[in-house]
């Protein structure tokens, strides 16, 4: 079973460095931008390791750590703190809180892995699903229109996977001069934040590549999307045929 790693940092750059470091290993990396999101992700995913930044808006890493340690179901999760502050008081404060280790930024991905290997074994990734196989799960083509069909449950790992294959797909589309895409969320069972983020990201990628995109959703989903500021202005078609007609 893959090791679940949760990286909590307000910097996307740092989250990407952490993610990249664990890429060769049998790990699934979850991301959170602050302590509140981090706690929610930790509660939901029960990760085997948390890489936690200190200075973050909304809730700092120290506060999140205190809450983790105060929760019987989460307190045993090993935590490595990342900090830009190497001052004595700061370090003593971190160590006292029972973290496995801490790293002072700047750091390299391999330095982080070295710290992790001190207390756990990282298994190399085996037989990874090929990018083509991943893409085939989500994309079909109807004439000159590429259809991206979202699965029933859109979670953070799903959004990461879809975002990965989407970028490649759009490049392929540009090369093949395909300029239309339908994003079909009709089969999605729950409208959540991961789904909203994925819709926005997909629209942004399409916009950047000059690919026209239409969203297909049920009337109920259409109403739910209006409740999110980010998607409230997106026009929704209720079937693939209707979307094709408007592209």
């Amino acid at each position, binding site marked *: 079973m893959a090791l679940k790693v949760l990286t909590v940092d307000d910097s996307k750059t740092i989250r990407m460095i952490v993610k990249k470091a664990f890429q060769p290993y049998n790990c699934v990396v979850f991301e959170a931008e602050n302590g509140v999101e981090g706690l929610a992700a930790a509660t939901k995913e029960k990760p085997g390791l948390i890489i936690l930044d200190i200075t973050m808006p909304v809730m700092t890493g120290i506060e999140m750590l205190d809450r983790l340690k105060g929760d019987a179901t989460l307190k045993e999760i090993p935590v490595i703190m990342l900090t830009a502050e190497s001052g*004595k008081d700061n370090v003593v404060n971190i160590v006292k809180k029972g973290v496995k280790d801490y790293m002072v930024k700047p750091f390299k991905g391999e330095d982080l892995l070295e710290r992790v290997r001190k207390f756990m074994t990282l298994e190399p990734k085996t037989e990874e699903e090929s990018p083509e196989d991943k893409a085939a799960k989500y994309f079909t083509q109807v004439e000159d229109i590429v259809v991206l069909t979202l699965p029933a449950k859109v979670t953070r790992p799903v959004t990461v996977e879809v975002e990965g294959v989407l970028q490649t797909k759009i490049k392929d589309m540009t090369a093949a001069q395909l300029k239309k895409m339908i994003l079909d969320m009709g089969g999605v069972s729950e409208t959540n934040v991961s789904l909203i983020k994925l819709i926005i990201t997909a629209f942004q990628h399409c916009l950047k590549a000059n690919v026209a995109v239409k969203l297909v959703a049920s009337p109920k989903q259409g109403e739910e999307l209006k409740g999110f500021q980010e998607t409230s202005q997106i026009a929704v078609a209720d079937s693939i045929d209707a979307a094709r007609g408007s592209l």
Partner: protein
Amino acid sequence: MSGIHAVDLKSFVTHSFKNVFKTMLSMQLAPEDPPNRPSVTTGQHIVGTVGFGGAVMGNVNIFVSREFAREMTAAMLGMPVEEARSDEEVNDLIGEVCNMVGGDLKSRLCDAGFTCSLSIPSITFGDSFRVESKGWDRHELIGFRSSRHSALLEVYVKTPN
């Protein structure tokens, strides 16, 4: 405590800035004296700022051209420069560099008895603006040069009384 004037700000932030570039970006920086302000404040450029406050107050500002910021982002994320187009990624990178340099300086100040806290970094970018701070006890402007670009690091420090 012998006062903020006893702290060797310039050597410290110079080492810190070079170390961030070397460790995170695999880029070597050399000092550029005098600092080449026009090359990083003419045309599209970006300024990252992080502040600290407490027994000592101050700002760390980092100035780079937009082009250099994109190269830095590509180096940090291991991607071709052409792919480092997103403002979000470039701004985040400059903010993080500021955070590391500011965090390091803040730690040094705390260890020297000037207890203070660090702010979240902020970013300003465009092609026609100036960043100025006034009324500080200490001010350092340090120029750096990578192979093709210049960068500026500016530090302001003041004690409350």
